[in-house]
């Protein structure tokens, strides 16, 4: 078994190093079937297969990489699974048809609070956060602490399901409802960094942001306007040119 497993790992590594996403995508079902075994190995202190699995998922450039049959397993990930594994694996799974999602959110939040923050972990947490938030009925179950991960502003990968589904109207409303201007600012910066007009839900995003008075819940405007922030990677216009992030025209100007 050890030899078979190591052979699989070598094969996956070779596929990842080839930098060709098509073979990986073509074998997504077989790679997905590896996940339970990879998690088990990771629990036993052998994270090679799990790490290779995550690398393969990222190299596939596919937002819906995992096979849908994994959802039954994902809904009941063993409790012995390490927090890091939970945090890294949950963004790879579509939340739409999972069962026992509330419990899973709790476990995810606990795992996020336990693990040391790194760029990889922050990416996954924010990605998952946005995916969870995209399911409107799950927003009440997201702990308030979890939203604070937005402020860490990890650089989301170019193809990221969280960014795509996280631009829905109710997500924006949910972030605004936090009444945390820093979180709102970070949210916009995150979802707009490397934003692809054609891949994102542009129209919905636009309508949500533009007629703010119509769609958005009232915001306490008494809070002080935020300091203009310019992230190092992004080429945002200055606040003097564009106005504050409260401006309903902000989205259009960026585009």
């Amino acid at each position, binding site marked *: 078994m050890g*030899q078979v497993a190591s052979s*699989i790992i070598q094969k996956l590594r070779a596929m990842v190093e080839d930098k060709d996403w098509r073979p990986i995508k073509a074998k997504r079902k*077989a790679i997905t079937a590896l996940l339970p075994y990879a998690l*088990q190995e990771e629990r036993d202190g052998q994270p090679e297969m799990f790490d290779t699995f995550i690398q393969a998922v990222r190299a596939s450039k596919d937002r819906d990489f995992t096979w849908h049959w994994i959802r039954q397993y994902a809904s009941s990930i063993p409790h012995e699974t390490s927090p890091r594994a939970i945090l890294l694996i949950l963004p790879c799974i579509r939340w739409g048809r999972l069962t026992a999602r509330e419990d899973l959110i709790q476990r995810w939040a606990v795992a996020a609070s336990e693990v040391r923050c790194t760029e990889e972990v922050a990416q996954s947490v924010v990605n998952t956060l946005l995916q969870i938030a995209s399911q409107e009925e799950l927003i009440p179950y997201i702990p308030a602490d979890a939203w604070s991960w937005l402020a860490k502003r990890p650089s989301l990968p170019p193809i990221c399901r969280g960014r795509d589904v996280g631009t829905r109207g109710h997500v924006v409303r949910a972030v605004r409802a936090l009444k945390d201007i820093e979180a709102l600012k970070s949210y916009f910066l995150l979802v707009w960094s490397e934003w692809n007009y054609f891949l994102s839900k542009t129209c919905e995003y636009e309508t949500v942001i533009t007629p703010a008075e119509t769609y958005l819940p009232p915001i306490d405007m008494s809070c002080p306007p935020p300091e203009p922030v310019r992230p190092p990677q992004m080429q945002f216009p200055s606040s003097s040119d564009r106005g504050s992030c409260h401006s309903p025209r902000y989205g259009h100007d960026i585009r």
Partner: protein
Amino acid sequence: MLTRSQAGLFSAVTSAFIIEVHSHLQPDPNDESAALLRVLIHKIDNTTFGNDPPTLPQWTGPPQTIVHVQAILLASLAASLLSAFLAMLGKQWLNRYVSTDMRGTAIERSQNRQRKLDGVVTWYFDYVMESLPLMLQAALLLLGCALTRYLWGINITVASVVLSVTLFGITFYGSIIVAGAVSETCPYQTPGARLLHHISLTVATIVHKLFTFVPQKLRSLARSSIYCDLFDEFWSSLEQPWYSPKNIFACFLFVCYVPVALILDGFLGPVMLLITFGRMTSDLGYRWYHRFIAPPKMHGPDQKTVALDVRCVSWMLQTSLDKAVHLSTMKHLATMVTLADFDPTLISGCFDVFVGCIKVDVSSYNVAILQGLEQLAVVSAVCFLRTFHQLSVTNPDSSVLKDVRKRYNNVFPLETDFRGLPFYYTITKIHALANQSWNPRYIRWGDYTPSTQEYISFTRSVAEVAQVVYRRTQYQKIPRWTLRFALHSLSLDPIPPTSAIADCLSIIAIDLGCEVSSTGFTMLDERCVHI
């Protein structure tokens, strides 16, 4: 032995005639003496013979008839002697074949024996041995022909009797050849009958292909023409007869278009031909590349050894009636890593052993295991499912499969109740396979909770199916349900046995195209099938 004694008898009979005829091949001294006496008498009294004085005869060689007869008789004798010689050699060959090796383990001796059996098949030993009676029959025919020809010159009446008997023999032999070729159940089977049957089948296949291929080709050629397409389209669009006022002008224009269409046909024809040729070449090159140049290494031990083992198992199941032998053979079969391309008759062997352990109550459709055969019933069920499942996937149209299904349904009616059996999941799967109602694509694996040993054997068979299909699809893919099964098995809590996990990983490895050495499967060999 019989052939040798028959050959000796034939040789003796033929030799007697040869000796008889041989005297005619040289000048007869009695005739010469009589001629000399006639000359002497003529010298003494020249009136004895009248105006016809005797002369000394001049030997001009034997008559042509005698030469022919003698040649045929000698050919008959040679055939008989050759037959006896080959029969003697055959006796030696068979002695060597039945000799038992006293060295090595039982498996090695079995493999050696199987090798000898394979050699017998490969070198057409049976054909050689069957040629001995043929040679004797040919010798008999030659003897009959020679006798007829010889006696025809002496006395036609006597020759007619021999000719009649010879003709009767030829007609009878021809009739049994035809009868044997026409009907496989005819007891008068001869090598000639099989040859005739084979030739007639080949001829019928060629004729059938000719009569189907040529019209199809003609039709496809006609369809590939642009003009024909346009004409079909145009003709089907006419709602009224072509000569109606509404259509007559359109028809006139269409006829004018004929030369244009023909020119287009002429131009596009070679281009399409080149494209088609290019596609065919690239496809062929791709297939050859993957088949001969870059085939991934397949899993498991040497295929030849596996095939040899499987044939050994099959032979033992077919020839032995001992239940203990059956049990050990079945256990060996259950623990084999792979079955490779096994002989379909293996299924029949497994089925026979399995049915021998089971008793079905016809009135209540209950199944019970015969006392003392519980172990054998379990193992044979596992082996039967394994072989049945694999053949159902690899060759669903196999005649053996149909036969086994028919026999199975005779033993186990559709309403059979399998509850309470220790191999419930195995037998229900067999039942579904036999009734062709088992479709793994729609199985909810969550509901599949067999015993450990059933799970192990089923996982093994799934891995085999994946491997076989992967090879059959030119190393492209495996059935999706096998991956789903692997995913389900790896997700189980508590985790399945180690060998089942290894098999599931093998399924995934096969789909990923991994090169796994045979040592990776050592554990599979050693996995325990606690029965």
